[in-house]
């Protein structure tokens, strides 16, 4: 499966990146392709283009705060979760894909 994801936590210092790492590791172990954009204290990194989003099968939005540029995800199937849900049980999350 071709997945795009965004992570964003309240302080943007730690959990944004922990969740991104968790998503990448889990996707890899399950044989999925994934690109994770982080919206943290340093702003948007590893930014997803509209073309990348449009080409994906599903978007995982792991955010505790309002997302930057949410309209990019208007046309794609979204799974929205809290950041800590990614850390707590990534297997359950990927089972929903």
């Amino acid at each position, binding site marked *: 499966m071709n997945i795009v994801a965004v992570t964003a936590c309240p302080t943007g210092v730690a*959990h944004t990146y*922990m969740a991104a790492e968790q998503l990448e*590791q889990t996707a890899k172990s399950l044989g999925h392709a994934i690109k994770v954009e982080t919206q943290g*204290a340093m702003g948007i990194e590893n930014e997803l283009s509209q073309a990348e989003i449009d080409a994906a099968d599903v978007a995982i939005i792991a955010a505790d705060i309002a997302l930057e540029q949410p309209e990019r995800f208007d046309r794609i199937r979204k799974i929205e979760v809290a950041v800590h849900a990614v850390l*707590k049980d990534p297997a359950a999350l990927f089972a929903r894909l």
Partner: protein
Amino acid sequence: MTLHCTFTCSLPNGLHARPATALEHVVRGFASEVTLVSERTGASANAKSVLGIVGLDIRHGDVCRVTIEGVDEPEASAAVARFLERDLAHCDDAIPPAPVRPGERPLPRMLLQADGGILHGTPMVPGIGHGRALVIDGFAIPDVLARARTDDPDAELARLEAGLHALDARYEEELAEDGPDVAASIIRAHHAIARDPALHDHLEMSVRKRHLTVAGAIAAADAFFSGMLAASESALLRERALDVGDVCRELFEVIHGTTKVSARARLSADTVCIAENLTPREFLALDRKFLKGLVLEFAASTSHTIVLARSFGIPTLTGVTGLRTATLRDRDVIIDADLGVLITAGNAGTHRYYEMEQARLAGRRAQLRHAATTRAETRDGQAVEIGANIATGEETVAAILEGADGIGLFRTEMLFLNRDDPPSEDEQFEEYRRALIAAAGRPVIIRTLDIGGDKPVPYLRMPHEENPYLGYRAVRMYHEFETLVRTQVRALVRASAFGDLRVMVPMISRLEEARFMRQVVAEEQARCTQDGHVFAPLMQLGAMVEVPSMAFQLDHFCEALDFFSIGTNDLLQYFGAVDRGNDKVAHLHDALSPAFLRLLKKIVDDIHAAGLWVGMCGELAGNAAALPLLVGLGLDELSMAAPRVAEAKAGVRALAAAPCQALLHAALACASVQDVSRLVDAFDGWQPVPLTAPELVVIDADCATREEAIKAVVDRLYVMGRTDQPREVESAVWQREGVYSTAFGHGFAIPHCQSDALKANSLVILRTRQPVAWESLDGEPVSVLVLLAIRESDHAVEHLKILATLARKVMRAGFRERLMNEQDPAVLCRYVMECVGE
């Protein structure tokens, strides 16, 4: 003929005790009657009475008139005019900042959970103390005595006079004893009240007209003057009511022979004193060895009792809400004037908290001591001594604790000002010796007397000058006041036996002046030998570089003297022909002007060419932004206000000499101050404080709860000087923890926060001895904490990148395993930094 002058009170706090005392000082010696009239109220008072002056309640903006009548009218009038014009404005006390109100600060989690009967108060003097509660009741002259009438007023008047004499003598005696400066200044203030004609008149009238006994007259005078002061609009004056009460009680004691106060004050174990009110003398009577804290119902930060408590570092709270003294008597209490609480029912939880607090404070002290014994060197090995500027010997201890490598400037003027006679040789010797002993072998540069027209000293009878800065001051008046100078030099020579004392002479512009001082030192050393005093024969003699002409003859001065220190304030004032007190030209007083930097470069280079030592003790030395230029100049020492020392040392360590020299070189070639400022602002030679260090890795922390672990990890930042406000940081961490737990599983938690209470972005790793219960994602307890503490307003992208990488790393089992098991903090620190690519 009567002389008049009018003025408008410019002091924000009004004409309170300090300016009133200064005015009384000015007019005291004249025969003329001097009367002060408030145009606002029409009331008038004898200007030779401090109580009379303050009783006028003259406020900011009030128009006042002074009338002078008597044989020496012209002289008295000139003195008053000079005082009003030049000195009055400097007599004010700064208005102290509003203290934190009870309950305003959030309490640490640990303490709240312990619930130890917490009462909130207003912290006046910071610190933590623990002891038995001693309740001190107020004192009042017994009613029976106060209301009694006498049949023999003359006998009572005789008793009163004898009592006033005895009181005068008692104060004189106490002032002669060697005590702390602040206590002496308060005794002097009380002495002035006891001599005040208004007080004497009131006492006499009560006996003569109302036939009161002496005791009754004292009670009446106390009620009258305290009432008058208490009704004042000025907080500073209201505080003085307590001082009047103190003097009245003292007088009562002298006459009636009661010594209740001192008997009650005897302490034999650690004690926290609780009182509605405590007078300065009652405070002084307490044995400070056992006095661990003070809880007062009423007292403002300017009251003399609080001033004393502050100078002795006794933790003090006021206005404690819900305080019921009767129930506290003899109970074990903890006073925490950092937080503003009184713990009245301590338990295991509060004890554990204060145990950790003690460890935190002791850890910081040890760290500061370590920094104090380590010299500051640039990254490429250029050493710069960082000294402290002081004005009294007793400041030395605090300066050394702040990390000073020595005393770069001990201004001795304070010893000579605000008194009627010059200090004796022995008094000076004790003062200098105190500084040398506290400095424990570090150099102490003591500047000889620097007074003149701008700092008038009554007993020297200096003539009034139009332009005192260019006039008769410092070394220029040493010939006329040779006895005074020789007394000081002898005290210095004797004190040299106790450490590395160096004598520095101000305002030298001619070689003859340096030679004269050399000769005086040699002669006084010879006299000390004759008198059997021990001293250091090779005591160094140096000069302030503050008259620009000296800079052009340093080859000769270097032959005559041993060392130099640049006084940038005066040097710049003379060099740039600019009075910095004059708002119209103050902008020209800029030490970063290229011409001034060229002068400094010449001074340092010429002195170094002769192989001698040169420091800097003016304001520029403490200017953090100018530090790269000062390092570039190659100064041997920078001396500044003690609280700046630690930062300056850290600054030197973050620099390298070579880029600083390049910066200076570029600055010297600049055309304007603005160009220099731009260069300094753009300077990028500072090495940032590293994110972590082996000292920020703790592998065996004794923590039983999540609260303890978070406190421990934040306390580490405090101990290492990365924050001065650990409670603010802790509260920010808890705020984040409140969004959702940062314990993400596997026995790990990464508490974090963004807060400007931090001085530097930091990473702390703390491993607990046993796992700690935590609301973790996988329900498991936590044994490794990784604290990410980031400054809110910095955009330190480099550090954020590292932390982002670290956050990703903790999701990997191999990394976590190493954090869980590595035994050497230094190795762990290096491993973590390597993993995140540093």
